């Protein structure tokens, strides 16, 4: 559950202009590829290459999915997962911003905490499952502990990088125009760190979802993960796959949402600018 520290460019670089025609062709290829994937998923169990007991054909998974959508229990489980995920993510982001700004803007604190952060960060969140069960049992707080622990570091590390990326000329400009410490944080440090923060949030959102599902699956806290476990032990294989598909769709939705947020907040950033200087 620890993903490597990603100190990538804050946001994806979109190629400006000329990509319009390609996008259409890419979309078509994407649809074709996905259709081929579904077709082979249908064919492989039907041809007996894999036993349908382990891998039901795509059509049966689809039917199970439709059935799921009709159940109230499914929506409750989905709600539980989304709540655990979003609450944990929110706590992690707020904590990450607060700690990141304080530590990042005070050089002494940065030096003092660097080694501790490097030690704590790589601890896989799943290693804390026994602790979570011991302290909180199987309720939402166990999920939150794991989700917060995993996603907090993603946010913190990005904020730390972002806070240190302030352009010295911009900082000096702000000082010469009489901007005090708080005004500089608000008008210079915050916008500089924002692209990094959003990258951190996007990574954290993905990790948080993984941890939310894991916690439900392993600890048995209510949610989609728990439903997957129940379906598996009950031999409802198609239903299990249908639930897995739902978690995948959730992951896609989370990513799309995070991208939207970046586009909306960072329209000024070089990687997302549409217009180029005349």
């Amino acid at each position, binding site marked *: 559950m620890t993903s490597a520290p990603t100190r990538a460019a804050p946001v994806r670089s979109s190629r400006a202009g000329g990509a319009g025609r390609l996008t259409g062709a890419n979309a078509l290829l994407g649809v074709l590829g996905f259709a081929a994937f579904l077709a082979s998923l249908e064919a492989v169990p039907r041809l007996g290459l894999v036993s349908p007991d382990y891998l039901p054909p795509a059509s049966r998974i689809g039917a199970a999915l439709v059935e799921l959508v009709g159940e109230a229990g499914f929506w409750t489980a989905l709600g539980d997962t989304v709540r655990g995920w979003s609450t944990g993510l929110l706590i992690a982001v707020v904590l990450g911003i607060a700690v990141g700004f304080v530590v990042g803007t005070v050089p002494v604190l940065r030096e003092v905490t660097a080694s501790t952060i490097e030690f704590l960060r790589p601890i896989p969140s799943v290693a804390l499952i026994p602790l979570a069960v011991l302290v909180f049992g199987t309720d939402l707080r166990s999920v939150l502990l794991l989700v917060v622990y995993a996603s907090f570091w993603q946010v913190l590390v990005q904020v730390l990088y972002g806070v240190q990326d302030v*352009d010295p*000329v*911009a900082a*000096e*400009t702000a*000082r*010469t*125009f*009489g*901007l*005090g410490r708080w*005004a500089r944080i608000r*008008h*210079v440090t915050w*916008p500089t760190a*924002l692209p990094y923060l959003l990258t951190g949030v996007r990574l954290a959102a993905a990790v948080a979802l993984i941890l939310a599902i894991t916690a439900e699956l392993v600890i048995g806290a209510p949610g989609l993960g728990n439903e997957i476990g129940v379906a598996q032990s009950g031999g409802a294989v198609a239903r299990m796959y249908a639930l897995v598909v739902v978690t995948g769709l959730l992951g896609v939705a989370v990513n799309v949402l995070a991208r939207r947020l970046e586009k909306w907040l960072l329209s*000024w*950033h*070089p990687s997302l*600018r549409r*217009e180029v*200087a*005349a």
Partner: protein
Amino acid sequence: MSAMSQTQTEAGPRTEVLLDVRAVRKVYEGRGRSVEAVRDLTFAVARGDLVCVVGPSGAGKTTLLKCIAGLLAPTSGEVVLEGESVDGPPPGMAVVFQEYGRSLFPWMTVRKNVELPLKQKKLPKARRAELVGQALDAVGLGDVHGAYPWQLSGGMQQRVAIARAIAYEPHILLMDEPFAAVDAQTRADLEDLVRSLWQRLGVTTLFVTHDIDEAVYLGQRVLVLSSSPTVVLDDVAVDLPAQRDQLTTRSSARFTELRGHVFAQIQRAKKHSGASVVE
């Protein structure tokens, strides 16, 4: 200092001294070695004056400017602005940096960039709008309020930076090689802009450049700095007519003469640093 220290007689009775640089020395303490960037700089700028500081590259021009702007504390000596010793960015000062692309905030529109310092001054909204409008009109950018700096050309971006500085209504305007990164044509336009703004607004201006022609064309006075460790080599009064234009002024005999004089000083400066000149 040499024979050309005629400023005092030239300008007639000296008016109020706005900026007083007194024996400023700056030594950078590195690991195990120290570098003396500025040895001993002493000069005064009168209220309403336009003074150019010119020196060979690496002459500590930027160090000097940062000391005056209160961004850097001198090792010894002191900078006095309007009777008060500078120990941090003083309120009555605006700086235009060479790197306009980094000095303007890309996350703010042109209007917001110009307005931000005025908000810090706690000016009422109406007054801010008025100052922003006037400043952008004055630099010929009345129609780009809503654009982002990165949507503009380099010359236009530096105009925005100048507008931000004059909207701040500073008592002194510092410019650190502001036109070093723009093309020659744009540069000529911007020089004329600085000249005309100075004449209209009467704001005391200290203009740092490595370009001799620019210094002579713009300044009422040109301070020639030596190589590092820096001292003032010469203080040249520019007795060109007040109305200057790129063509006639630059081709006049007096311009050529002044330019030649400063050029000779700079050549001398390259060979000598403060270490060999002063003693």
